[in-house]
């Protein structure tokens, strides 16, 4: 199941809007209020999500159940693979079953679930959205309405080998791609940089982060694809040239998260673009423990914009007891619960203030870097047909990386393919 679970982890990620405005909490410019059905009914509910690997979700549910004996929550564990989770939730919606009440949605699914009316709009005014990381909030929105409350988040970081940098006389990790390339020139004998470049969701993350870090965007504010631009070309060229020059080792084209992690832990890489989960694991890896650190991803002219991952909580349109569900979501996204979840599972919280707590920073030294990255993070294209969008991206980028097409061809082709897919 390794590959499937890695995919699940890779699919960590995003949707999102591009309308930035930090004041998105106000929700005043809602053009079309979808019949905001009142969230009514109290009683037992369920939470449907992937495997509860840390066991902490069940623990938090137990705490809730003790306090609310009339409104108990039951955890329904879905398969580990993200695709299968989505499939089961879709089936549940298509049969209009009330089996799942609260859905744990990957950030890239929000648009699809909202547009199909599989999830109910949440009352924005009942959440203090200003306390959450703005980018994470956007992943739960569709057309300015909130459909999923931000629960866990994720963003790519640059893992680097402190010891190798020191030996080469480099004082700080690279902030730009050219610094990265220079540093790579100074360190001989190991592969230099890698990310997740196999043809799967991770490639979409790595590509959109390269484009965003070069100042471009895969899909613009109005939802139109925008990849046939100089910025997008610079982004993709960074990866293509990386492979050509050998800065990125050839075998990185087969890497998913776990392959990349293994290569880093074997000491084969100086720099690795990876999700935060690797910190805890690499801290136990004999060859690299104590010898690595994390930094924000580099970009074209300064720090890059990592791709956003994570999970949000939404309420199924066909469920009963939606009032209880809303309360439960508020409980799960409250400060105390998110803090406890970070401590138990080391999954990144969506509440900004937690990143500044000294006690937490002591336990998770990468938190300040992660927060800086998250404030810069960009969601993946937000599309109702996200699956088709990501497949088209993977197809084009993979062809460019493997030299089957030039950057220009790949991007022009992608632009025309994304057009009909992102019409909204």
């Amino acid at each position, binding site marked *: *199941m390794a*590959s499937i679970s890695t995919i699940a982890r890779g699919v960590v990620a995003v949707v999102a809007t591009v309308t930035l405005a930090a004041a998105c909490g106000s929700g005043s410019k809602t053009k*079309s209020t979808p019949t905001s059905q009142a969230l009514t009914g109290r009683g037992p509910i369920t939470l449907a999500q992937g495997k509860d690997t840390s066991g902490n979700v069940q623990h938090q549910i137990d705490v809730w159940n003790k306090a609310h004996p009339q409104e108990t929550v039951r955890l329904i564990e879905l398969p580990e693979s993200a695709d299968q989770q989505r499939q089961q939730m879709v089936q549940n919606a298509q049969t209009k079953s009330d089996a799942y009440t609260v859905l744990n949605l990957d950030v890239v699914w929000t648009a699809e679930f909202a547009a199909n009316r599989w999830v109910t709009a949440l009352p924005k005014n009942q959440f203090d959205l200003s306390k959450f990381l703005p980018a994470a909030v956007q992943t739960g929105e569709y057309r300015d309405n909130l459909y999923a409350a931000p629960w866990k988040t994720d963003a790519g970081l640059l893992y680097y080998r402190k010891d190798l940098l020191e030996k080469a006389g480099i004082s700080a990790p690279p902030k730009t791609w050219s610094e990265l390339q220079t540093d790579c020139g100074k360190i001989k004998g190991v592969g230099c940089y890698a990310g997740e470049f*196999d043809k799967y969701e991770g490639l979409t993350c790595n590509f959109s982060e390269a484009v965003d870090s070069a100042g471009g965007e895969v899909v613009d504010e109005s939802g139109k694809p925008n990849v046939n631009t100089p910025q997008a070309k610079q982004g993709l060229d960074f990866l293509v040239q990386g492979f050509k020059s050998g800065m990125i080792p050839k075998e990185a*084209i*087969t890497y998913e998260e776990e*392959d990349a992690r293994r290569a880093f832990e074997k000491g084969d890489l100086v720099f690795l673009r990876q999700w935060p989960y690797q910190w805890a694991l690499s801290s136990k890896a004999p060859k690299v423990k104590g010898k690595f650190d994390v930094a924000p991803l580099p970009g074209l002219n300064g720090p890059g914009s990592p791709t956003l991952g994570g999970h949000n909580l939404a309420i199924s349109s066909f469920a009963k007891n939606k009032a209880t569900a809303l309360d439960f979501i508020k409980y799960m996204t409250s400060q105390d619960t998110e803090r406890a979840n970070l401590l138990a599972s080391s999954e990144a919280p969506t509440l900004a203030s937690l990143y500044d707590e000294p006690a937490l920073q002591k336990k998770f030294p990468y938190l300040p870097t992660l927060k800086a990255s998250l404030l810069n993070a960009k969601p993946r294209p937000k599309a109702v047909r996200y699956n088709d969008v990501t497949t088209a991206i993977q197809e084009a980028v993979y062809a460019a990386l*493997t030299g*089957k097409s030039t950057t220009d061809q790949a991007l022009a082709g992608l632009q025309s393919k994304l057009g009909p897919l992102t019409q*909204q």
Partner: protein
Amino acid sequence: MTTTTTAGPAAARRRRRGDVQGSGRLAATLLSPTFIVLALVVGYPVISAFRESLYQRGQGLDAQGFVVQGDKFVGLRNYTDIFTGPNSDAFWNAFWNTTFFTVVTVVLETVLGVAMALVMHRAFRGRGLVRASILVPWAIPTVVSGLLWRWVFQADGVANAIIGKQVLWTTEGFHAKLAVIIADTWKTAPFVGLLVLAGLQVIPREVHEAARVDGAGAWHSFWRITLPMVKPVLLVAVLFRLLDVLRMFDLPAVLIGLHKDSVETLTMIAYDEATNLRYGPAAAYATILFVYVAVVAYTFVKLLGADIIGDMRQTRASRPARPKRKPLAAAREVAA
């Protein structure tokens, strides 16, 4: 049939006399539960999938950004789209891949399977151990063997260590096809081997002894005696493999990955369409595959005369029956 054989000769005679009308109806009645179950688990899904393939689900969005709900009857458009639409390349690519995998793996597996069976058939020390170990790959679930082979074929895996150069097996290209073929052959040649072994074991030893007395060499006696006598079983094994490999999904999906054009098969496209909620086109792909499988199986049976329901023919042969009957038709007649 069972009743006749178990009830003794007297009963059989009585039954046969009443055959003219009574037992046909009785047989139909007795078999009706089977037919009902078959209609439910085979007939209904096939018909319903075909019906589904004539519809398309709404994909458009209304002014508020909601998907316009409802299925639309589109006739055969899902089919014409597959053959001539913008994605027809993907279809023909998958069709070619599926056919290629089928031909290559079935040939390899047949040759290796027969070889394995011959080895297992030999009497030698440790024969039990060899038989058991040859069957291990077959006992491993396909997804698991897909993962195992993924490790073998990864960049720093065993395969590269053995051949001494770095091939990135899971990237696009012919090597990806090769990886799938190797893994599939490893897994299913034992299946052919096992069936052929069963066939070998019923060949009377005297036949071979007689051949040896007549001066036939090993090759001659394999070609003229073993192979013809094992042919009925071998054909059934090959037919099963054909049906199986035509709907190959899990091995390429796990070993190489989804959306990799080099190994994408028809089932993978159908799966992909269904995942993206395009049930109509997905059903159309599945229906096309169904027809393709049926045609291949029918042609195979016709051309090589694979005797699927062998004992039926034997029963018929014991009576003065018309000789050239299709086994399936014979089966149907017996059933009626």
